[in-house]
């Protein structure tokens, strides 16, 4: 983790679900503290909610069975913009990207639609055998 002139950067790699989710939330907590934001800062709360959705997708679907390929994670904040990137080695997810919010009875399938609504930009690209996610929000 580094903080310089109001900018903030955090990097981590992780493989296990519990560990990964803990690191994602802890990184946002560190950003909150480093930038002097309140615990109820709405912009950061919306960003953390989107990060939780993409992070859980990456941690549950992004690691092919039988591999220990870790997820690479970076969180940075500069000039009022928070940006996270997550890289995993799971199957491509293009067909899920435009998924709409399902009806009230559905117990699953809301994550990507939620993340799109909560962020200013949700980027995805397939790079060789990797999925690269980019989450951007102006705070």
């Amino acid at each position, binding site marked *: 983790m580094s903080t310089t002139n109001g900018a903030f950067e955090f990097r981590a790699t992780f493989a296990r679900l519990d560990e990964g*989710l803990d690191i994602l939330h802890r990184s946002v907590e560190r950003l909150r503290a480093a930038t002097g934001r309140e615990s109820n800062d709405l912009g950061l709360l919306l960003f953390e909610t989107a990060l939780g959705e993409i992070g859980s997708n990456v941690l549950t679907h992004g690691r092919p069975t039988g591999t220990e390929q870790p997820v690479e994670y970076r969180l940075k904040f500069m000039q009022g913009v928070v940006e996270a990137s997550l890289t995993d080695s799971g199957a491509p997810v293009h067909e899920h990207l435009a998924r709409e919010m399902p009806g009230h009875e559905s*117990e699953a399938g809301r994550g990507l639609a939620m993340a799109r609504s909560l962020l200013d930009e949700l980027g995805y690209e397939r790079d060789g055998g990797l999925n690269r996610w980019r989450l951007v929000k102006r705070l």
Partner: protein
Amino acid sequence: MTLEVQTRQTEGGVTVVAPSGRLDVAGAPALKDAMNKVAQNGPPRVVIDMEGISFVDSTGLGSVIAALKQIRNRQGELRLAAPNQQVRVVLELTTLDKVFPYFATLEEALAGF
């Protein structure tokens, strides 16, 4: 962080389920287990006291929807109490605030239930 779930019965016969921690993809199975046990005991009136929930994701929300369906199938009723700001944002974003009656406090949720 694991989700811990405590269950108790009020004198009025309402079951209060109180999860504590993050209700996310890792924590949702614990709530599902607790709700399965609750739903086995007759037509249930259940309040999920969310005061201890620090964060909810779409999978956690799915476990609450599953609980609602399970309880309604048994002619019961489910209320949510004391969701924090993040939980309320997620309920409103998904328009599930139209489906779940939620109350600011546990006392309000139990009143007249």
